[in-house]
C-alpha cells in the first residue's frame, strides 16, 4: 500500500469511528452550523461530540501545525482528508472566521507567542471572531476607512464605527482595521484584535432582505486596545488585511461548487417528474439546469486545481479574485434555478414544510455573495490589473 493509501485508510477508519450519524446529514438551516465560541449552545450532543473529536485530533484545521491545534497534514494529505469527509457527507465540525480568515493571517504575520495564544482557541472553537473592515463610507474603497486609534503610549483609544459586521453580536473578539496615521492612506492602518466585551463596544443588528439579521453596525466609543494586540507592524495592517481577504475570497467562492448536491438537474428530476422519454419535464428548464451542471462540474475541477496550486505556491496571488468572482456568480445562478425548480412551494416564507422558507431565504442570502468580501466588479478590476496587466488606474 502506498503512503497515500495508508493515510486514506487511517482517515476512513477514524471518521467511521468518530463521525456521528447525525453529522452525516445535509445541513438544513443555520442552526445546523456549528460556530463555537464562549456562549455557544450546541444544538445536540452529536454536534458537540463531533467538534470535540475533530479538535482533539487537529482535524478542525488539518493543515495547521500541531503546535497550533492542527494535525500538521501535508497538502496532499489535506486533500485526501477532505475527500474522505465528502465521501461520507460529513458536516464541517466548525465554521469559523478564525479558521478561514484570521488563522491564515496569523500564521503568516503573527509572532510565535501570538500564534500559540490565538490559534489554539480558534482550532478548538473556543473563541468566535468577527471582521471589522467595512465602514459606512468605505466599502469597495476600503482603504479610505476613518475609524481612528489614538496613540496613548501602551495602548490605543479607538473611536469610530464599522458596518456590515457579520455576527458582531455573537462574536467574542473582533479583528479590526484601524487608522493609526491620518497622513498616510495605505501605510497608516493597523490590524488590531480586541475583545467585543471591551468597554465602549456596542452593536446594532441590521435586518436583511432574507428576513434574517446576521450582521450589525458596530460602534467604538473610546475603546482601549493594548499595544500587544496588533498583527504584523503598526501602520502596516493593510498588508495583513489584503492577505486575509485572499483567504476570505477563497472561502466565499467555495459556495459555487454547491455542497453535497451532485447534480441540480438530477435532484429536480426526482422532485417534479420526468416525461415518457425519461427527461426532466420542462425541456427549457432541463437545458438550463444541464448547462448549469456543466459549469458546476467544471468549477469543481477549477476548485481542485486552484487548491493544489495555491497550497504549493503555484497559483497567481490574485487568482483567489477569479475564484471568488466565478464561484459567487455561479452560486447565484444555482439559487435562481432552485427557485424556478421549486415553483410556488419555494415561495413560501414561513411554513413548516419549507423549513421556514429556507429556500427563499437562502436564495436571497446568495445575492450577498457577489458583494461581501469585495464585489464582483472589484474582483474584475483586480483580475484586469494584476493578472492581465491592463493599463490605467
Amino acid at each position: 500500500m502506498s503512503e497515500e493509501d495508508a493515510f486514506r485508510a487511517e482517515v476512513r477508519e477514524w471518521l467511521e469511528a468518530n463521525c456521528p450519524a447525525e453529522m452525516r446529514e445535509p445541513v438544513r438551516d443555520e442552526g445546523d452550523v456549528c460556530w463555537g465560541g464562549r456562549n455557544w449552545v450546541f444544538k445536540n450532543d452529536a454536534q458537540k461530540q463531533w467538534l470535540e473529536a475533530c479538535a482533539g485530533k487537529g482535524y478542525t484545521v488539518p493543515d495547521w501545525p500541531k503546535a497550533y491545534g492542527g494535525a500538521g497534514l501535508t497538502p496532499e494529505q489535506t486533500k485526501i482528508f477532505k475527500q474522505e469527509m465528502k465521501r461520507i457527507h460529513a458536516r464541517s465540525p466548525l465554521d469559523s472566521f478564525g479558521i478561514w480568515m484570521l488563522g491564515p493571517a496569523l500564521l503568516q504575520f503573527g509572532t510565535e507567542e501570538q500564534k500559540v495564544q490565538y490559534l489554539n482557541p480558534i482550532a478548538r472553537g473556543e473563541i468566535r471572531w468577527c471582521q471589522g473592515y467595512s465602514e459606512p463610507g468605505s466599502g469597495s474603497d476600503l482603504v479610505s476607512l476613518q475609524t481612528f486609534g489614538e496613540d496613548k503610549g501602551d495602548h490605543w483609544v479607538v473611536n469610530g464605527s464599522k458596518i456590515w459586521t457579520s455576527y458582531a453580536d455573537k462574536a467574542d473578539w473582533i479583528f479590526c482595521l484601524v487608522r493609526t496615521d491620518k497622513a498616510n492612506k495605505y501605510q497608516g492602518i493597523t490590524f488590531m484584535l480586541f475583545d467585543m466585551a471591551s468597554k465602549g463596544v456596542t452593536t446594532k443588528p441590521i435586518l436583511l432582505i432574507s428576513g434574517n439579521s446576521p450582521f450589525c453596525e458596530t460602534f467604538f466609543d473610546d475603546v482601549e486596545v493594548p499595544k500587544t494586540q496588533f498583527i504584523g507592524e503598526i501602520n502596516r495592517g493593510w498588508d495583513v488585511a489584503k492577505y486575509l481577504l485572499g483567504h476570505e475570497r477563497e472561502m466565499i467562492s467555495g459556495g459555487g461548487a454547491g455542497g453535497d448536491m451532485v447534480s441540480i438537474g438530477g435532484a429536480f428530476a426526482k422532485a417534479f417528474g420526468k416525461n415518457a422519454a425519461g427527461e426532466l419535464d420542462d425541456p427549457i428548464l432541463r437545458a438550463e439546469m444541464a448547462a448549469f451542471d456543466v459549469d458546476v462540474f467544471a468549477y469543481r475541477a477549477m476548485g481542485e486545481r486552484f487548491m493544489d496550486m495555491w497550497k504549493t505556491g503555484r497559483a497567481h496571488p490574485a487568482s483567489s479574485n477569479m475564484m471568488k468572482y466565478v464561484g459567487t456568480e455561479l452560486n447565484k445562478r444555482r439559487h435562481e434555478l432552485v427557485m424556478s425548480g421549486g415553483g410556488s412551494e419555494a415561495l413560501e416564507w414561513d411554513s413548516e414544510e419549507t423549513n421556514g422558507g429556507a429556500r427563499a431565504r437562502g436564495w436571497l442570502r446568495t445575492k450577498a455573495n457577489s458583494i461581501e468580501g469585495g464585489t464582483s466588479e472589484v474582483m474584475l478590476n483586480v483580475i484586469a490589473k494584476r493578472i492581465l496587466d491592463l493599463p490605467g488606474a
Partner: protein
Amino acid sequence: MPLYHNDDQAMLKDSVAPFVAEQAPVSHLRSLRDSADATGFSRDLWAQFTEMGLPGMLVPEAHGGLGMGHMEAGIVLEEIGRNLTPSPFLSTGVGAVAALAKAGGTQAGRWLPAIAGGEAIVALAIDEGAKHRPDRIATTATRAGNGFRLDGKKSFVLHGHVADMSIVAAKTDGGLTLFAVPRDAKGLTADPRRLVDSSLASHVTLDGVEVDADAVIGEIDAGGDILDALLAATRTGAAAEMVGVGQGAMDRTVAYLKERKQFGRLIGEFQGLQHRAAHLYGEMEVARATVMKAQQLLDEGSEGAKLMVSVAKAKAGRAANLAVREGVQMHGGIGMTDEYDIGLYMKRDRALAEYMGDVHYHIDQVARMNGY
C-alpha cells in the same frame, strides 16, 4: 494526483511549445491555405513531429510508442490549438491510438507501430450526418465470404482523402463493430471539402467495400466500448486544442488592448473592456482545469471520466467561443480583416466545437448521465 503539470510534463511543455511556435505558427496555416494545399497539412512537419516522438506518445511501449497519457497529449494539442497548426495529430495520434490500444489484436499490432513511426495517417469515420450522433450509425457491415461488406456514407472525416487507414464504425448483426479499412479498398471513395478553417474533411462513401474478417478492430459486435474509448480520447483532445485556440485568441486580444489607442487612451484602460477581458480570463481558467481533470480521469481509467469528458468538451467549447467572439469584437474593424489572425481563431474554434459533439450535445449527455 495534483491538478497541475508535474516536472516531467512541464519539461515536455517547455520543449513542445517553442517547437510548434517556431515550426508551425499561424503563418504556416496561411501558407497552406493560400497555396490551396491538397493534403491539408505538411508532411515535412509531420516528419518533425515524428522525430520528437509525438505521434507515438499514447502508443504503448510494446508497440513502439512512448506509453504516455492524455495529460501529455493535451500539452501538444494545446500548442497545436494556440498556433492553429494543421495536423493529423488529434485523429491519428490520439483518437485512433486510443481505439487500437483498447482493442489490441491484429489491427493494433499492424497499425500502432506504423503510427508511432510516423508512417500511417488514420482517419476516423464515425459521423454520418451534419451533426454528431454516434448512437445512430446506419452504415452496415454484412458477412460476405470470409469477411464483411461495408455500405454507407460518412461525413466530417478529417484527413479522409489522404489517410492510410480509416476506422469505420458500422452496424453488425449483434451490435456495433469497428473496422480498419485501408486506403486502397475497392469501393471506398473520399470526397474532400474545404472547411471554414481551411482544413479538409471528406464525405466518405462505402459502396460494397469488402474487407477480411481480420479487419475487425477488437471483436465483432463489441465495438461499443472501443468506440467509447475513441470518442473519449478525441473529445478530450479536441477540448484541449480548443483551450489552446481560446488562449491564443485571448492573448492576442489582451495584447491589442495594451497597444490600441482611442479617445486619447489605450482601450485597455476602459473598464467596459477590462471587465469583459477579466470575465473571459476566468472562463478560460475554468475550462483549462476541466480539461486537465478529464485528462487525469482518463489516464487513471476512472469511472467518472465519461462525465468529465463531456463537461470538458462543453466547457472548453463555451470558453473558447467566448474568447474568439470577444477577440474579434475588441479588435474592432481590424478584427474583421483577413490580414489579422484573430479571425482565423474564430474559424478554427467553430470547426473544433462541432467536431465529436458540440456544446449542446455534451450538455445533453451530462443531463442524461445524471438521470434527467
